[in-house]
């Protein structure tokens, strides 16, 4: 279980990183390495080159920029999970982190690396879609922003071009009074999700406004459940409504069939979890 041969470089600044990324065939960015390195050891991933960004200064920020929270490419999961900026502005992210791997992985792993890995059962890609985050993508020729909805294109696939790197995630602070909830079922705590459901909503005159519902682990990529959001919009929260939403959600997904968990089971989980996250989110909404 040793990786195949690869080139390794560890630049001190971002322009060099981006230049190397453009120059080298089949190069990958090494940030936390918590998914990439095991895959290389299994020889599932055999990149020709690794560009280690851990010596690049100033990429590990988690900061407010007006109403936007900006998270840099080297911000570690553990720091984000414990960040007061995140706790007070995006509490669903702190809550979701409870389900992300184990502390050893969170200490080293980065949010941006996690998003680029794009595991369909991973929590943060689903959460970024829920939060409608903007992905700041840089290359040696410039920079662009990609909405989360367009970033995750499939299993382990993103909108990144080979010469591009995800340098920052920008999340608009949810509106005051937003209720939220994240729940997940996996074999053990810290495992990839068999199904995870996340919800945010507001109540306006007792009716649900701007609901957002996202799921992970139940398709090729994490996704928003538009049909569920449509059913909820403008309705008063009730057990019946949430049961209807749950059935709609279960009908809208086409989960994978794996040896450990069947598609039918994953649909069951969405049916079970959706009413739970929606009712908690409704309770938390002001």
């Amino acid at each position, binding site marked *: *279980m040793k990786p195949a*041969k690869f080139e390794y470089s560890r630049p001190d600044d971002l322009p060099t990183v981006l230049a190397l990324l453009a120059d080298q065939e089949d190069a990958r960015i090494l940030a936390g390495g918590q998914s990439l390195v095991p895959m290389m050891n299994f020889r599932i991933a055999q990149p020709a080159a690794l560009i280690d960004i851990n010596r690049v200064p100033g990429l590990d920020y988690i900061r407010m920029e007006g109403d936007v929270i900006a998270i840099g490419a080297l911000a570690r999961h553990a720091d984000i999970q414990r960040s007061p900026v995140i706790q007070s502005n995006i509490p669903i992210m702190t809550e979701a982190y409870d389900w992300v791997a184990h502390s050893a992985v969170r200490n080293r792993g980065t949010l941006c690396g996690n998003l680029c890995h794009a595991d369909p059962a991973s929590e943060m890609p689903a959460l970024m879609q829920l939060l409608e985050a903007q992905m700041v993508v840089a290359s040696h020729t410039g920079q662009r922003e990609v909405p989360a909805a367009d970033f995750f294109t499939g299993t382990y696939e993103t909108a990144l071009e080979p010469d591009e790197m995800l340098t920052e995630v920008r999340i608009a602070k949810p509106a005051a009074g937003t209720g939220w909830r994240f729940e997940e079922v996996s*074999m*053990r*705590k*810290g495992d990839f999700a068999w199904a995870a459901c996340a919800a945010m909503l507001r109540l306006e005159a007792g009716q649900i406004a701007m609901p957002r519902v996202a799921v992970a682990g139940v398709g090729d990529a994490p996704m928003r459940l538009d049909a569920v959001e449509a059913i909820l919009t403008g309705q008063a929260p009730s057990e019946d409504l949430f049961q209807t939403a749950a059935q709609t959600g279960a009908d809208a997904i086409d989960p994978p069939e794996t*040896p*450990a968990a069947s598609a039918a*089971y994953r649909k*069951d989980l969405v049916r079970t979890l959706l009413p739970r996250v929606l009712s908690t989110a409704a309770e938390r909404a002001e």
Partner: protein
Amino acid sequence: MASHLDSNVIPPSRQREVPRQGMTWIGQSIKRVEDPRILSGKGGYIDDITVPGMAHAAMVRSPHAHARIVSIDTSKAKDLPGVIGVYTGEDLATVVDPCPSFASPPVPQHAMSIGKVRHVGEVVAAVVAEDRYIAEDAADLIEVEWDVLPANVDIEASLEATGDAVIHPDDRESNSALDQTFAFGPVEQHFAEADHVIKRRLRWNRSSAQAIETCGVVADYDAFKGGYTIHANTNFYNFIPFVIGGSLRVSPGELRIIPVLAGGSFGSKVFIHKIIILTAGLARLAGVPVKYIEDRMEHFMNSDSHGSDRLYDAELAVMEDGTFRSLRFTVLDDYGAYLQFGVGTHGNAMAQVTGPYQIESVGMRVIAVLTNKCQQGPYRGFGSEVTNWVIERMVDATAEELGRDGVELREQNMVQPDQFPYMIPTGNIYDSGNFQEVLAQAKGLIDYDAWKARAAEMRTEGRCVGVGLATCMERSVYGPTEWWSLNDKEAPGFTLTSTPEGISARIDPSGKMFVTLNSPMVGNSPETVVTQILAERLTVAPEDVVINYADSQTGFNGVGPQGSRFTAMIAGACVSASIKLEERLLRFAAHMLQRRPDDLELRNGAVGVKGLKDQEKSFGEIALTSSFFRLSFPDTEEFDSGLETTAVYDHPISSDPHPDREHLGIFYPIVGHICHIVAVEVDPGTGKVDILDYAAVHDNGTIVNPRTLGGQVWGGTANGIGSTLFEQFIYDDEGQFTNPNFAEFAMPTANEMPRNFKLGHVETPSPFTEYGIKGGGEGGRLGAPSALTTAIEDALKTYGVKINSLPVTPPTLRGLIRERELAITAE
């Protein structure tokens, strides 16, 4: 009345140290003496071993479950710089013969496949290179052409296989490796007389221990002397030369096996004979020392340590009043592609197949089924964990069908305290016990009645909360007839009868006591246990005991930690050595103090005159004088220099199986007893099980160290929770092993363990072992599955869910609940 057991006579006890209260060191929770060097990284595991000129091996493994090897092209690999040699099964066969087998008749196995592969992960070629990276690069360049054959995956379907699907067509016409029927007592008569026959079909699926360290070997062939020097993390290093010498074409004495600290075994490292043969053969072919450490996938796929994989059709004959009469079953066991020790795991289970209950007869048909999976090997419980679960399932089924309380039914049928030693129908004995006291303590520890009431109340509120209780046996101090007693009648290739354990001890002129063991440390506490027993018996200070490990050429008898034997057996060896050393200490001291030996006593590491506090000689003074000043003593042989001895302890009580297998003799007689009680809550929408409360009470006789025994109970319970809720090796229809990694094979972590684990002990000393010690190494895995299964069924009472197969992972349990939801809706 004549009985099939009449010929099975219980020999008298050879116990020398009787159990007693108030001992100085035995019974103390001293800190493990092994820990400081291990926790500071100085332990020395197999991968820490390097020898001059050492090369590294990597393997090419079969991607197919069942296939003929058409051709192997190694040319590209051979050309890679840094590669020393590339070898196929035919190459290896020029220097080694097939693997040994305890099975009778044997199922042939090669350390590297020749002509055909029989499970995914089997080795088909090996690269020896300057480092492991190059070896793996080269392995990737080897091209194998396959002729894929039908894969046998299902345990029942495999028995029907014909033609190309037969796994060993040269030796067997079908995939049934062994099919044996036994009747221990008048089974037919008891069933005919029964008022009720309770039937269940029960399935236990395969998993394995997955110690944190995989198996590994560093082997060197001495072309001049013709022998091998081998470092390996086997449990069994003093016996393994006798097991593998034939395969390596050397006499056992030409194999020097050097033990290393092992990073956990739980059975998985009992033999590791296959990779020792493989690595040694590669070293001989390559002409350099070779290191081979299994990676995790290799350990999953090819380590020969998969646990039981059984399908039972079981019947319990019961009288109207609830009295159990007879148990009988047909069991199919999916042994995988080979059968290294026959049906030894069923031999083991016969030690306690009737559980703690009085059942007059037992009938069994055991069919060892060959499939295209990795072969079975030892895993904590060695098959008895399954029968424990089966008998407890049958008791619960009986309680349900008779409308009885399960605990009350257990108490009604339990062996009573005045019935020991109690002989069960298979011939094994239960040496001692007090099952009622264990039950009472466990119930008290968790407040069983209050939990039952609370769970019932919570269920009326719509929550799925339940309580389960299991009373199980924990046989210990194995006798080796279990390996072959159920094999076919032909004599097996290799038999043992007493599992001797040896020790050597020397008190040196500095006053230190140097002790050499003949069994390795595998994560258990051999040094702590030996220190405490010697401190107890000889009054030496624990810090003066220094422990080392012999290798297979410098040591002698040792069978290693397995079958919950080590503590009781090494205690016997310690007592034997102490008796010999005491005799010499007293003789020398008597001369030095000018007293008769009868006037002297051992006290605080000294020999003193009874009743006279100031008249004594320390062990150090005696050793110094006896070692360096020979002329101070009479010129007779008994005063020869030095204070040292070797001693061995043979199995305390065992007998041979009946020639016609009317019974199996006494082979696993030192029995512990356990009661586990657990309260769980099930989330019916997800199938997740939350353990709310847990109590485990074990009776392992006299306890040497409550802390280390507690660790065994805790760890075994974690294994048991894994086997019940999480762990299963899933082979798909093509025989692909779908989850050979830690992401998908889900062992419980700290998060899945009970938050408030309540541990209790009862001490019913054995009348046969020294100090009354019993083994407890397999611990909680023998009880947790039964208690948890019962608790989950209790929690889901309103749904009427029945659990007949383990593990019940959340998806499985949710599936059972869904079935019942649909059935209830339909009603």
